[in-house]
């Protein structure tokens, strides 16, 4: 069974130590919440999992093999939704989604990409916005378009950075539904969020890791 894990991860930005000795193990089909105060490094850890940022210490592993050994395979395995939506204002919603489908087209035909885009639009309830230029969308609608990107390219690991921002109840329901389907198929979801997720989930609490590291420093001093 696939497992996404991290061993003693540490991150230093400039001269600031963001976090150290953070470890986690997330089995297939598992969802994990990143918890911690502002500035504890939730987004940084998520970006590190996505491969945007190399860990200063420690390693990230997939099935106990460091992901750095095959970065392309890791990139194909993840779908990252950050703070920024990555939506081009001058393109329509459909064009935005189709672009992401075409970018990693593989053997898919145009028709398959179009169908997948329609499915993504339907999943997040923005089918009626399909031909609107993205610049005229509201923040919530733009966030739904960003989330629709999860459907455009199947990926084992979903890395969601506060996905629920600007989402209304129906969008939240759509997100839960999509996540449930993804988890059911053995996928993994790592989410940095503040809202309480309905069902209790395993947590990676960065404040807890910070307390432990501080204690270790005090003990060593």
């Amino acid at each position, binding site marked *: 069974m696939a497992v996404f894990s991290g061993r003693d991860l540490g991150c*230093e*930005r*400039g*001269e*600031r*130590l963001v976090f150290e000795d953070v470890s986690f193990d997330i089995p297939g089909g598992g969802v994990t919440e990143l918890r911690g105060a502002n500035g504890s490094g939730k987004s940084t850890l998520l970006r590190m999992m996505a491969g945007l940022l190399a860990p*200063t*210490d420690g390693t990230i592993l997939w099935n106990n093999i460091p992901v750095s050994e095959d970065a392309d395979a890791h990139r194909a395995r993840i779908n990252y939704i950050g703070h920024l939506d990555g939506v081009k204002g001058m393109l329509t919603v459909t064009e935005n989604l189709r672009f992401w489908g075409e970018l990693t087209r593989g053997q898919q035909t145009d028709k398959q990409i179009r169908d997948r885009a329609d499915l993504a639009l339907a999943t997040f309830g923005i089918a009626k916005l399909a031909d609107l230029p993205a610049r005229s969308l509201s923040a919530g609608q733009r966030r739904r378009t960003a989330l629709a990107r999860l459907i455009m390219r199947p990926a084992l690991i979903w890395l969601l950075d506060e996905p629920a921002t600007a989402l209304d109840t129906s969008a939240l329901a759509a997100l839960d539904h999509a996540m449930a389907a993804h988890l059911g198929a053995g996928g993994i979801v790592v989410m940095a969020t503040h809202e309480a997720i309905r069902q209790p989930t395993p947590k990676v609490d960065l404040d807890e890791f910070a307390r432990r590291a501080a204690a270790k420093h005090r003990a060593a001093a």
Partner: protein
Amino acid sequence: MHRFANPTRFVALARAVQPWAMTIALATLFAGLWFGLLASPPDYQQGETVRIMYVHVPAAWMAMFCYTGMAGASAVALVWKHAVAHVTARATAPIGAAFTFLALVTGSLWGKPMWGTWWVWDARLTSVLILFFLYLGYMALENAFDDRARGQRAAAILAIVGAVNVPIIKFSVDWWNTLHQPASVVRLDGPSIHPSMLTPLILMAVGYTAFYIWVLCLRVRADINMSKVRALKLRNA
């Protein structure tokens, strides 16, 4: 600060090298001056102005030497992620720029008596002028970012890209210069160098190199100290 790629070892090295660099620099520069100004004959063609060569040619060599050093340190910094290599490259930039500036000014001071104008589009002077802009670009990019680490990495990439381009620029400027060769331009270094002129030249070159290493040690130590100060402030904050 534990990720600082053993700064303590590097600081110890800098402190060990510094006094040696200082003594060599002072000794050779003094000897170079003595030979250059007093104990060497004027040139039969250029007369006393040939003495300017003793400060011009070493400066031009150092301009190239520092840029190569900067590009090398940047490559090490990017490949092995040694923050100390970034510090070395950043400490080298102003020294290299100073040498390039000196090469340009002394070149112009040397050109005036020979060609009657302060600036002449001689191939090497032009290439050194472009090199001077590469230095300015490096320093400007280095502190154009709020995040220091971003500036260091961006400047390191620029230094390497610049280093790849220097020979291409040199080639095209030489080609351009020969094409537009005005009849009156005499090649800058004139006749082949008489042995008695070689000693001051070599002395000055060694003196400039030792001076570079000496000032480099000073600037690297200062830079590492300031990083430690910032880290301490962050930790106590």
